[in-house]
């Protein structure tokens, strides 16, 4: 595996820019929704072949092991080129979780599958009655011979219809004193009999999330990650990686690209009032990069991400929303138009960042929950 950290930043940027611009399929550039697996499979494999699929994984597991600076360049260039978002749970969450909490057999089996595109993951966390209060989940797993048998339902499962595997938080001990105890973290093949899906259409009209039903679904004992009943610790560890991922400047950068293009097309850059607001948002995003770098460095050193990583998610997603809102304001009358809008030679989907940034303050623990976490565990305020 090549050590990309060893080359200088500008050379790496040039390499990334050239690669993303020429290799990412033109028809999917700046897609206003997440890519489906049949659309991104070739791209996924192309990234994998180059060794660029998992920029955040350590090199010994087939990742790029990028330094914070290089990772930011990687993201800046993907967003600059309009590279679409793939079903990426395996790369952003399952990989780091197995590297940290899994056993050798699980790593040896699943990590290569993720890199090869043979295992596409989705997240079985939320339930109809367990959203912000995730620990009150009721999906149950009972040991029967060499298998756990799972019954229950998960919801808001992004890209489940493209996934080959799902990781599930299930209750394994009903007698536990605290609701956080007695939960286990299980890996499940989506082809297992007893799993059914219902897709859910979102506010933008896209079918990106699903409800997943488990009816006596069997998964072998070896697919238990970590200890029995101790899944909450792993769940929280994974949420740390999720917050790091959601907290990256990547998604707000998408909105900024659009905003600058629109401002150029509409001649707004000479408008002092607009320019000052744009600059503030650019600084908000640049400063997010500084904060993000701190956590990437921690993750790279294999340190646990503390509860303070929640602030990345809050700042990233709210910056994303502010950018999407300024985009709408800057579009003026055009902002009523659904889909791509042609104006002064540019073609910009004005509303998609607005839609795409809405769930960011809800999923992965709502931003209100993140603030509760920060107040309690970081500021040590009383309850």
């Amino acid at each position, binding site marked *: 595996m090549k050590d990309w950290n060893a080359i200088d930043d500008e050379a790496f940027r040039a390499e990334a820019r050239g690669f993303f611009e020429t290799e990412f399929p033109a028809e999917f550039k700046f897609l206003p929704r997440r890519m489906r697996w049949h659309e991104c499979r070739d791209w996924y494999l192309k990234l994998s072949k180059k060794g660029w699929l998992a920029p955040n994984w350590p090199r010994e597991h087939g990742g790029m092991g990028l330094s914070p600076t290089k990772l930011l360049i990687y993201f800046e260039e993907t967003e600059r080129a309009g590279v679409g978002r793939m079903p990426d749970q395996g790369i952003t969450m399952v990989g780091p979780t197995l590297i940290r909490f899994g056993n050798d057999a699980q790593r040896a089996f699943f990590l290569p599958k993720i890199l090869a595109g043979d295992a596409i993951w989705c997240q079985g966390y939320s339930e109809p009655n367990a959203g912000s209060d995730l620990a009150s989940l009721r999906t149950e797993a009972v040991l029967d011979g060499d298998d756990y048998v799972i019954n229950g339902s998960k919801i808001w499962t992004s890209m489940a219809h493209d996934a080959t595997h799902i990781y599930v938080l299930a209750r394994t001990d009903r007698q536990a004193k605290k609701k956080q105890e007695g939960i286990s973290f299980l890996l499940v093949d989506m082809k297992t009999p007893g799993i059914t899906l219902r897709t859910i259409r979102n506010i933008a009209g896209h079918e990106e999330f699903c409800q997943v039903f488990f009816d006596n679904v069997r998964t072998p004992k070896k697919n238990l990650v970590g200890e029995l009943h101790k899944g909450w610790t792993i769940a929280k560890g994974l949420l740390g990686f999720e917050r790091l991922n959601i907290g990256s400047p990547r998604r707000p950068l998408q909105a900024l690209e659009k905003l600058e293009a629109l401002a150029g097309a509409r001649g707004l850059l000479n408008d002092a009032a607009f320019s000052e607001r744009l600059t503030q948002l650019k600084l908000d995003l640049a400063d997010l990069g500084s*904060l993000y770098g701190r956590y990437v460095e921690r993750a790279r050193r294999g340190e646990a991400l503390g509860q303070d990583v929640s602030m990345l998610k809050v700042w990233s997603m709210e910056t994303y929303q502010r950018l999407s809102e300024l985009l709408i304001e800057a579009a003026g009358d055009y902002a009523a138009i659904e889909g791509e809008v042609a104006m002064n030679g540019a073609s910009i989907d004005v509303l998609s960042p607005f839609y795409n940034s809405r769930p960011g303050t809800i999923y992965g623990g709502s931003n*209100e929950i993140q603030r509760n976490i920060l107040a309690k565990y970081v500021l*040590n305020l009383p309850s």
Partner: protein
Amino acid sequence: MTIPDDNSHAALLAQSVGDFVKRGADLPRVRALAQTHAEFDRAQWRQLAELGWLGVLAPESCGGLGLGLAEAAIVAEGLGRALTPEPYTAVAVLAARALEHAADTPLRGELLSGLVNGERVPVVACHEQADDVNAVRIATTATPFEGGFRVSGQKQFVIGAAGADGYIVSAESAGELQLLWMPRDAAGCDTGLIPLADGRSYGTVTLQDVAVPREHVLASGAAARGALGRALDHAAAIASAELVGVMKCAHEMSLDYMKTRVQFGKAIGSFQALQHRAVDLYIQQELADAVLREVVALLDAAPDDNTRALHASRAKSRCAEAALAITRAAIQFHGAIGFTEDCDVGLYVKRAMTLSAWLGNGRAHRLRYARLAAQGRAAA
């Protein structure tokens, strides 16, 4: 003092700063100095010199430690925390950096060595207009005269003037910038002090036909412009570090208060509305801290002028706004007591205000950032 590497240097500094700056311990002195707008306590200044802090940046040839902004930021954050009114950033960063890149003359060596050991207190007098971050809009003239210059003009916003023994003055001579040394008591040089909110002062230095001998020319032309530009950006970054110290201490005071103040039978820190507000300010604090650390490291790597200015502006903009937001909120978190003179919160509010305003406020740096970013885009 033999120290094996930079890391342990930073660690040692952090330790000594931590020991020196016991939160609140210095505040009675700060209050007393504020009453008189003296801002300068010779004994305290000597102590800063003895600790080696005045010489963190200065070259070893002048008795300094020759370290970087990352280390200076550690010192400045501690002094910000303690609300130390002495002009550390104005002297040990702004003046030291301007002198460091001056021509290698006996005067330069004398001023830098004196600065490091605390015997000389040079400050830079270069601004004439508000919001002029680069100090380029100047009307002060230097007219050639018997091998030296005669200088007339007026400088404003000079932090440290209260205790300074002389000024590094910028002046124009036939379109060329000159950096000149001017003893405070030079004939025709008059220092007026304008009281600031936090008990310190801005010096207004009025120059009327002040004779500057050739030996007092520190730098000319591009060298002067380069030295001043770099010194101002480095000082903006270290003023940002002071602001980080101020905001962290103020926010800790708010959080402590929220844990102990009881209303409706509960600590007010248990109320979600206050918790979320405290969290949002904490996020601002951590953004400021992260930007500061990144920026001082970037500046220490000696980037080109535009990159340096761009990052210095990022730091000052975020740190100024965050410090103002956090200290303003500290009044609100403390309730009516926070609005009293006796409450220490006010001292932090006022220091945040003066540090934010000095060397370009958040808005001035945002505007400069926008300008520089647009240039960068045009060049790319």
